[in-house]
């Protein structure tokens, strides 16, 4: 069941979409990478922390990045800011994940450059909905961090 549709508006993407997932929970990272590869047909890269993410960010042309806010060394907020500072990735959609976000946390995530917030714990189905929403959004991006209502 490939979740990714290639319609007219995305004709420029010929290859499978490339995604980077930064998550310090090894089990969850494995599940997310496996799901996005097998169920969504993505070419997915995984990283456990800021340092690992930076290596991938420097090497791969990414279409979407998923960042956990609580990382072992530098935080996810800082990684978002790092991504936005790279001219090449200044406009790549960023999904951030975190537990029980307060409005304050979501505001900070938005200010750091995130586009969509996914509250933990989430089902893989939620992940696919959020990622699809991010990739399929129009090229002219609207400002603001969104919080997808699933129900």
């Amino acid at each position, binding site marked *: 069941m490939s979740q990714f549709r290639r319609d007219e508006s995305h004709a420029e993407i010929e290859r499978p979409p490339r995604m980077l997932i930064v998550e310090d929970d090894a089990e969850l990272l494995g599940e997310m990478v496996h799901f996005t590869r097998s169920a969504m047909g993505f070419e997915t890269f995984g990283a456990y922390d800021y340092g690992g993410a930076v290596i991938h960010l420097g090497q791969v042309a990414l279409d979407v990045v998923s960042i956990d*806010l*609580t*990382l072992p060394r530098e*935080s*996810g*907020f800082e990684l978002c800011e790092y991504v936005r500072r790279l001219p090449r990735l200044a406009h790549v959609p960023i999904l951030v994940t975190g537990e029980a976000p*307060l*409005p*304050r*946390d*979501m*505001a*900070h995530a*938005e*200010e*750091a450059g995130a586009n969509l917030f996914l509250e933990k714990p989430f089902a893989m189905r939620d992940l696919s909905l959020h990622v699809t929403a991010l990739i399929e959004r129009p090229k002219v991006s*609207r*400002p*603001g*961090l969104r*919080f997808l209502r699933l129900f």
Partner: protein
Amino acid sequence: MSMDKRPLLTVQLANRAGDLAILTLAAFLASFQQGQLHWKVALVIALASSFVLVLLPTLFWRPLRFVGTRLFGSRQVEQVLIVGVGPLGRHTHRALLNDGKHSVIGYLRFDDEEGGARLGAPVLGPIGDLERVLRERIVDEAYFAASSHDLHACVQGAIGVCERLGVPFAIPVCHYRLARAKPAGGSDFTDGYVHYLNARYSPAQALLKRLLDIAVSSMALLALSPLLVCVALAVKLTSRGPIFFRQERVGLHGRTFGMIKFRSMVSDAEALRAALLARNEQTGPVFKMKQDPRVTRVGRLIRKHSIDELPQLVNVLRGDMSLVGPRPPLVGEVARYEAWQRRRLSVRPGLTCIWQVSGRNQISFEQWMMLDMRYIDHWSLLQDLRLIMRTVPVVLLGRGAS
């Protein structure tokens, strides 16, 4: 919020099919005794329980809710004003909408902020308009969604306005970005804000006060029902016009409601008021007159013992009013209030208050407002009970302030 968007009845019933199946199964199990299935008994139990537990609520939900909102109003939705159109303001708005108990009436802009598109509520002006907005609109709480310390002076000024007008407000617990740290107390402030009230009671005490209102008003209505019926007949039979006089009054945080009295004046009294304004005996924006020629004979009698005010027990039961609290003002009076006088609206209006039992009739508008402030600022449940006790003899002996 979206309670009205209930699906079609057939869809509702289809959704309840699972409940029906479980009930039927339970009925069969219940009638399965000593290895023998009494299927007739089972059928009766299944039908009866399905009817009572599933069909009745589904069929009568709308009428029940209609009666409920008629009786108790729809006070559960709190109206919120958000100050700040930045990311924090927007995300606060979203969090408030998700709990379904709040509606956001609009935003105010901090001076350095830009317009604000895609907010989902109108921008009512710059923060300098706070006092105007709080006076013109019903605001149960103002959220200061300030995301930086640079706004300190600005928010300080706005807090002063809220305190003067008696409007509850919330300020962010912390402006800093926390990637891992959690508050040491364990329980975080649930929405990242500290909430402040300008009234003295805690939410638990407010609930107690409300329960007291419900208990006393319903018992009083029941006990006084013979008297109420007699007075209703007397009013109806001795002069032309309706039994009740319903007047638009201002309640909690500026909400208007229809305050009910027995009609004690001729039916075109409001129109005659303009002609009598020159003979007003009360200072300030209130109109009061001892020998008011518009009062009917029955009216004079029921006014002497404040019986005309008794129907307001229904307002108390509905939650428009409380037993004890500042008397609810007229809309026109509130428009002419000074800022500090508007703080009277920070608590539910009441049937009786300090002035009503003080035994003093000649009192300036200013003094009256001061007494109301004293009530609000020194509130306790005990004081409420004491005022109720002191009101009873005052009413019975007909010595109440007019």
